[in-house]
């Protein structure tokens, strides 16, 4: 087990290295010159002396290979540089933005697990009932709505309409920016904060909740037919215990896999959700930095996301052993 974890952790290193190197070279072929950007924007003609100073300071006149080597030498020491545009240190931006993204993500995952699992479970147990059919239609629908369109629909229904019709204050939700930024225990919104949190959290959760519900339903339907379920009933267990302890736990394996793999999609949704709601998180920062050709920010934030993504995948794999003790994590090797 321990050796398995160590091996997987070591495997993250080449993955991160190749992924970021690929992005590094990609960014260097981007049109637009970072030097003019630092010197004050693309539309102005900056002083040639300033340009020379900047070129020397950031090493833009070095060959690409040298720049590449320097980049990794710095990155290994977690020196991620500073933004070309605002001169803020990448670590500051990372610290500030990731906290906001994390809070949003925590709530999205809570919604995904609570709503997705329970809807899928009910749907599987009451197969072909009205609620099952509705679930089937709604989950297919939710996977077809573009995240940003859903965001705007929610904005319209819960913020624009209440404002136009002079609804009471308590019924209005906020749709833009972080809000007062007041939290208890890191992630529980206090005061007015919930008004700002709820719509982006629901939007971010929508796609994965629908997927989780579909997956739980499918997986649960398989498990319900299993012999051990009949055995559990035959020995007189209450139906609730049969479903919860024998059924759900066995049905969780593909669902957990999905939640882990789906994290990549969640990052994509996060970029869109945060852009729609102007939520100052990692996703919106990455989208902006790529468009602005702000190389240090884009690479630094992506580095953090790639590492987080790899670690989450590792956790997912480890959780298999918990859900299904028959799986031993000692073997493995080439996939």
């Amino acid at each position, binding site marked *: 087990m321990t050796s398995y974890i160590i091996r997987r952790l070591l495997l993250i290193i080449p*993955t991160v290295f190749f992924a970021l190197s690929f992005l590094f070279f990609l960014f260097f072929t981007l049109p637009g010159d970072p030097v003019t950007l630092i010197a004050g924007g693309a539309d102005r003609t900056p002083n040639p002396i300033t340009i020379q100073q900047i070129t020397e300071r950031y090493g833009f006149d070095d060959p690409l290979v040298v720049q590449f080597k320097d980049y990794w030498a710095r990155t290994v020491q977690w020196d991620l540089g500073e933004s070309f545009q605002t001169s803020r240190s990448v670590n500051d931006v990372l610290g500030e933005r990731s906290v906001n993204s994390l809070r949003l993500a925590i709530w999205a995952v809570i919604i995904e697990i609570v709503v997705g699992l329970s809807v899928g479970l009910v749907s599987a147990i009451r197969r072909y009932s009205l609620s099952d059919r509705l679930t089937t239609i709604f989950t*297919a629908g939710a996977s077809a709505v*573009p995240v940003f369109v859903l965001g705007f*629909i929610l904005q319209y229904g819960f913020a*624009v309409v209440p404002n136009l019709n002079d609804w009471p204050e308590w019924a209005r939700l906020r749709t833009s920016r972080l809000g007062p930024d007041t939290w208890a225990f890191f992630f529980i919104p206090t005061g007015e904060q919930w008004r700002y949190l709820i719509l982006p959290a629901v939007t971010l959760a929508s796609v994965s909740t629908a997927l989780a519900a579909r997956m739980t339903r499918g997986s649960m339907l398989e498990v319900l037919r299993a012999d051990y379920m009949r055995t559990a009933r035959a020995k007189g267990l209450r139906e609730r215990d049969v479903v919860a302890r024998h059924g759900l736990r066995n049905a969780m394996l593909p669902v957990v896999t999905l939640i882990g*793999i789906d994290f990549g999609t969640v990052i*994509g949704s996060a970029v869109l959700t945060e852009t729609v709601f102007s939520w100052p998180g990692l996703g919106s920062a990455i989208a902006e930095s790529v468009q602005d050709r702000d190389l240090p920010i884009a690479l630094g934030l992506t580095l953090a*996301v790639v590492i987080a993504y790899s670690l989450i995948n590792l956790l997912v794999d480890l959780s298999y052993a918990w859900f299904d003790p028959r799986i031993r994590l000692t073997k493995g090797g080439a996939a």
Partner: protein
Amino acid sequence: MTTTDSPTGPATELQATEPGGGVSDVADLAAARPLRKDVWRRFKRNRLAMVGLALLILLVLTAIFADFIAPHSITDRDSTQFRKGPSGDHYFGTDTIGRDVFSRVVYGTRVSLKIGIAATTIALVIGLFLGAIAGFFGGLLDTLIMRVTDIFLAIPYIVLAVAIASVLGRSVNTVIFVLGFTGWLGICRIVRSSFLSLRQLEYVEAATALGYSRFRIMFRHILPNALQPIIVYGTIAVGSVILSEAALSFLGVGPVDPTPAWGLMVSDGKSLLAVSPHLLFFPGMAIFLTVLAFVFVGDGLRDALDPKLK
């Protein structure tokens, strides 16, 4: 409507069983009656799948006959009508510079279907080829290809797409390229796992004994038997490519303005949500219905192709 796709991802190495399992089905069905008839009979019974198919036919017809359906040109400006809501003359209203939203949504069908089908084709070809090689030959080649997919999977897909799109400039062809060359990972894994299990079967051994080339065995003998999940995945993939295209257009790295891309239209209307919601609603609805059609048809195909899941 059950989803029992075998889990993929870096976790595959932990899976005790290989997915696929389509082999014996194919044999059984072929013995009974033609597979195509059988699949169509089951597909017809699935109401959602039929709704999806009807939507799909409607979309294709709209794309083909856009010239006859759209009452206005996509660039014509009506200088008396800025940001007007739906009316008898402009069914979906007009946009900020007086263009007819209905006509733009109608022509947008062409953009979306073109991108969806072209990008999926590219992704399928790359994924099929690499997946087949990885699954058939195994060993070092397999490890190498799977590591490459792991690396691509580790880069958040949208970051990669935005970065490539900004390198290549904004156009329909760029979007096709970006989505085609980032979308092959899933299909590669599916094809690989089918090939891994199929290559051990007797008929492959027989073909080898007959002295057929490895290329022929891979694509004439194994591939037809691995086709079911590929068809299902390919159908759903067209939908998700259209969804991604909309996202890229929304983020401002898709096609540029006169092109009636739905995502771009939503993006253009986003600051006017409170005053002119129709600017977002109609193109947004068009994306939704298109993707939904592909999802329903894909689900229906899966259930029809693999009756075991019923």
